[in-house]
């Protein structure tokens, strides 16, 4: 990467293959455009599979895993996607992969900048899904922009979602309608997660109350706790460490049970 003609010129590999360029202060949209152009160039050299007839492999399972806000299920689904992608290079796998990776990125509380590889992989999958499929992972893009810290772009993208979408309600700070969406019996897990996240901004008591409303979340407890970690000062809050310890105990128990049943 070097500064050339008032833009960042990006090159890749030992051969310094030209990828594209970025402005002085690139936005997420700038990065998406550059990556899409780079992907189209690479696909000419090695096209994706043209045989895309039949059922979309794994899509339903991956989507349900990502929607369930369960990190272990999502990781397992991603492993299967990876195996199928190596075999088939079916472009229809890109959308569920992007959804699963973006969901994982949403769960991460990355204060030490250690999860850059996860964000990058989610961004790459999202761009490839947009470039090579007709499906537009709009909700995924909104959540990914928010997870990566591009809040303005997340707000702008959320306005394109349907009015009753909990993600749009969350970004528009329509808290009462978000909570009513989360209280439905058949509510989406993401609606409940966003409602808990918003409740955490109001204090520990509100967060614990909202969290207990939909408990127990088997295998999802850490994801719910992440919402508390994102909004609370951990060292000043006595309730959160206690809840975290309890949740980790439950998660460990759950993981041990999973390992025992798996073996």
């Amino acid at each position, binding site marked *: *990467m070097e500064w050339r003609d008032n833009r960042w010129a990006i090159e890749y590999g030992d051969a310094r293959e030209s990828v594209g360029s970025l402005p002085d202060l690139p936005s997420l949209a700038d990065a998406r455009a550059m990556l899409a152009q780079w992907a189209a160039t690479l696909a000419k050299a090695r096209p994706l599979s043209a045989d895309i007839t039949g059922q979309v492999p794994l899509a339903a399972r991956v989507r349900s895993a990502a929607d369930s806000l369960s990190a272990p299920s999502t990781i397992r689904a991603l492993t299967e996607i990876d195996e199928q992608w190596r075999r088939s290079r079916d472009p229809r796998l890109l959308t569920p992969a992007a959804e699963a990776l973006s969901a994982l990125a949403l769960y991460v509380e990355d204060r030490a900048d250690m999860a850059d590889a996860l964000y990058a992989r989610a961004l790459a999958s999202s*761009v490839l899904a947009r470039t090579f499929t007709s499906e537009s992972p709009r909700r995924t893009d909104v959540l990914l922009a928010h997870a990566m810290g591009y809040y303005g772009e997340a707000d702008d993208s959320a306005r394109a979602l349907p009015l009753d979408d909990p993600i749009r309600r969350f970004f528009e700070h329509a808290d009462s309608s978000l909570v009513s969406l989360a209280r439905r019996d058949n509510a989406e897990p993401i609606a409940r997660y966003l409602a808990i996240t918003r409740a955490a901004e109001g204090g520990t008591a509100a967060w614990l109350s909202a969290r207990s409303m939909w408990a127990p979340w088997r295998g999802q407890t850490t994801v719910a706790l992440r919402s508390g970690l994102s909004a609370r000062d951990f060292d000043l809050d006595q309730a959160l460490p206690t809840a975290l310890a309890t949740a980790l105990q439950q998660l460990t128990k759950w993981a041990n049970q999973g390992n025992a049943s798996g073996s």
Partner: protein
Amino acid sequence: MDPGTEPSRSRDVLWPSPRPQSILSRLEFPVPGSPFPVRLVLGIAALVIFVVLAVRDRMPQEPAVTPAPAASDSAARTIRDLVRYARTPARSVLTVQPHEMVDVIRATRRVRPDRRFLLAVADVHGLLIGAERAAARSRGVARQPLGDRVRRRA
């Protein structure tokens, strides 16, 4: 006997001489047991010291290390490194022309793009081509992110 010309021992002890005396005047006479007069020895020593000081002043010396020059040197080195990091020709802050100074400072302060964008470049390549990653893995640098590779080359 005139007491002013030949003071008695008792007067000499009780009443100091009205004539001021240099301390060296007591060394005016040869030291008992020494073949050289002390005044001559002291004069030679003073001459030697004078010559040594004169020669030392004319010799090239290490600059005195004080906090201010040390900080200045550190700042110059930092700016030089930053300029090199920005891939512009390395120049001393003392030789950069005033009209170039703005560009040099701007280059050193420019924010590099989000590292995750660069990692995504490598990921897009890895997902679509995958060959270079496999080759890199065989060379033992599979985990090296693109950003670090770019930085090292810079």
